[in-house]
């Protein structure tokens, strides 16, 4: 399959991640949506790296390296996000983002 097929899958995955963030009222779905979006970006990086035809591109690892760093940062983000969710749950007894409205009062 060509580059276009990979980009189509990645675009659909990105959009589904946005939908997961927007339509569900639970902070865990926000986390899952972010992971989907990062995965979509990774597919794009690796696909463009693979289909790169420029001079000397066969020894070029930039796209894959980018994907590795994205994975590393996703791991860090998930750990911090879970810690924040733990604290929010402790404070509000709920994991719904709409109910964390301490500053409004």
């Amino acid at each position, binding site marked *: 399959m060509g580059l276009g097929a*990979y980009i189509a899958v990645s675009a659909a995955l990105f959009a*589904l991640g946005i939908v997961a963030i927007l339509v569900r009222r639970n902070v865990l779905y926000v986390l899952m949506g972010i992971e989907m979006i990062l995965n979509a970006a990774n597919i794009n990086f690796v696909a463009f790296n693979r289909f790169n035809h420029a001079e000397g591109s066969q020894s070029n690892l930039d796209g894959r390296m980018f994907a590795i760093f994205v994975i590393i940062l996703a791991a860090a983000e998930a750990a911090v996000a879970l810690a924040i969710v733990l604290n929010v749950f402790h404070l509000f007894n709920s994991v719904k983002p709409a109910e964390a409205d301490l500053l409004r009062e």
Partner: protein
Amino acid sequence: MELSDKLFYGLLAAGSLGALALCTLMGGAGGAAFALFAILVLAGSLLCIWERSVVRSAFCLIGTFGGTAGLFLLLGSDFLAMSQILIYVGGILALILFGVMLSPPDLTERKLPRVLSGLVAVGAGVAFVAAKVASTVNWVQAAELAEPEHATERIGVGFLAYDQYAIAFELAAIVLTVALVAAVYVARRRKIDLQDEGAQG
């Protein structure tokens, strides 16, 4: 099982089989492999949005992450595919499942009109962009490509041998250390909380 569930699962299965058949006809064995992994990715995330319970959604994400690893394999990045499975399925999904324990079962949280309108918006948007892009860009065809070289060793060496990645590698190590220590610090239970609970109990 409700009628909407039956309809959704039926449509999903039919669409998956149709896409598999279409890609197999177009691209032979390579197309079938691509279709398999692409269906895993998209069906996993669709099911994640659709399911009522958070646990089911989290497990549906295994399909998304595993399918992405398969797509990496097809693109010739076996090291990335392995780290994808290790970190996403083994690490991040375990973290999310740990967070699921906080969430009380709330089966009324999913509002069908919201989900459906979101999916329709996504379908329309992706179709529009795909049509625009397909009519303007001349993609490289797979037949023109050289065989994928398996880059497991080259990525490992690339971290250390090339100057350009060494600094980023060290920075990533620092970021991970700081982020994980900070996560433990933020998530810890304070002495006051424990004393409160002791007084109550």
